[in-house]
């Protein structure tokens, strides 16, 4: 009896990041390769036009991040934002912004931060709408990407993949719809928060 299947390691995305970073921070050597499979053109241009120094807070350099896949301190996110943003987007299915819990506001039923602060309902509602808007924008962007991939799969006759993409699109559309409904019918922050068991 075989012991089992070799399984994929969690580090895979880290490797993608490390590789992308490598392509960004390595100075171009000799003639450029003719074909790049997935050109991180925007990132490269950005990084080359504005070379980034070390993180002012911890001294971490991008080259170190390339080697380890780990940043040095929270401030690194600010110091390397222009390089990190596209990498993070790629690692997180096209997401660019956090839409969940925040330290002083907690989580809620539909995940809109701010709605869970029982003692500050009025002040929080503006934040909710902002969060909802950001979330919808996120989903909209993701839908665009998926629909493009769907069109490509259909024209490439990859029907199994197309079917999966279509399911994912339906799922996201329902999710957005559900969020809209939740937001509209939300009885108020305090009541809302206890619902999810």
């Amino acid at each position, binding site marked *: 009896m075989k012991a089992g299947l070799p399984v994929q390691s969690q580090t895979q995305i880290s490797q993608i990041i490390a590789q992308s970073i490598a392509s960004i921070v390595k100075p171009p050597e000799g003639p450029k390769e003719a074909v790049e499979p997935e050109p991180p053109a925007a990132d490269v241009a950005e990084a080359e036009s504005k070379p980034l120094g070390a993180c002012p807070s*911890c001294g971490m350099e991008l080259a170190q991040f390339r080697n380890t896949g780990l940043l040095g301190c929270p401030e690194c*996110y600010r110091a390397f934002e222009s390089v990190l943003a596209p990498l993070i987007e790629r690692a997180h299915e096209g997401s660019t912004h*956090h*839409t969940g819990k925040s330290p002083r506001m*907690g989580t809620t039923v539909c995940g809109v931060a701010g709605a869970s602060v029982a003692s500050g309902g009025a002040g929080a509602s503006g934040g909710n709408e902002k969060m909802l808007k950001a979330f919808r924008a996120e989903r909209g962007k993701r839908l665009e990407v998926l629909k493009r991939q769907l069109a490509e799969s259909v024209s490439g006759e990859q029907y199994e993949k197309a079917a999966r993409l279509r399911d994912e699109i339906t799922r996201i559309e329902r999710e957005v719809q559900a969020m809209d409904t939740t937001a509209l019918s939300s009885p108020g922050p305090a009541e809302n928060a206890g619902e999810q068991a």
Partner: protein
Amino acid sequence: MSDVGSVFTSRQVANGASWLSAAAGDSDVVVSSRVRLARNLVGHPFPKKASRAQKQQVMELIRARVQRLARVAPGDEAAAPASKGALAWIDVHETTQADRMLMVERHVISKEHAQGDSPRAVAISFPDERVSIMVNEEDQIRLQVMCAGLQLGAAFEQADLLDSLLGGLRPAGHAAGSTGGAGGGAPVPDDTDDYLRYAFSPRFGYLTACPTNVGTGMRVSVMLHLPALRLTGEIEKVRRATKDMNMAVRGYYGEGSEAAGDFFQISNQTTLGKPERILLHEFESEILPHVVEYERKARAFMVTKRRKQTEDAVFRALGTLRYARRLTPEEALPLFSQVRLGILAGLIDDVQVNTVNQLVLLTQPQHLQRLLGKELDQDKRREARADLVREWLKPKA
């Protein structure tokens, strides 16, 4: 090798782990559920980049807050819901190698956390070991809640609440001295001043050492037992499908390990862009049920359409476990898997699922040595493993 000065008593070790209890929902397929949150503090470098002194400083800040929680925890369900015991603080770098390996085998710390001698700690909820908070792992805080069977919602609620309490929120209606339940409402800002200031950006969320954890910092995972899907050769489909949904598939022993004995861990890869509860909902309601149903159908198929082959395989496995005089872990785990399948498919009726679950834990090297109270070389461990299994699976006269 005695209990004196050890993290665990022999009784705790012999009792197995609560997250392997087979009483919970869907535990025929879902062995355990886990929710993990990654957090760091503002103004302090991540552990890999931090000096010894900086790590010590971070550890003291976290220790103070955790111990404050621990003081209110006993008997206070609001502060530590579903976790009856207090959080015990353990300086991992000061524990013995044996204790560290025991903690790794019990899944309360990671392999990485067991290595090295720089300041690091873990806070564990005893006696259930449901909660563990690793300090100075890849991130300064790795808070996990682990439950038996499919209980992701419960695991999340507890992790979320503990995280809120550490980070400056307290349960609504939970004034000082009150014992009001946490279910009554959402947390409100804490009025004390020693809460942990988490590193957080409005754009990227909770900031983590590795950008793959940024955002919610939340990793949701389940350990699945999928023997029938492997036997029918359909496990590849599951792997491909989960991969397409951006899930990671790993083995019993976590990152980089083989899916030995048909035990698989599935977890989310994406941590940014979706609110925690949506992420959880997708995982629990839209991905898992398909896999669970798929395995159940495959089991039904094995029992009806391939009954003799299945019986032959599971009883051979049981026979080997009942009569072997030496067992390696590599041999034992797939046999446990077969026997577990045999019990759940109704073919074996004189062994409990729980017995097999706990044997998977107790036959690991450090557990064996602690149970016998002495260090054993590899050869002796093989004999001890077979002895223990024989004893536990002895046919009833």
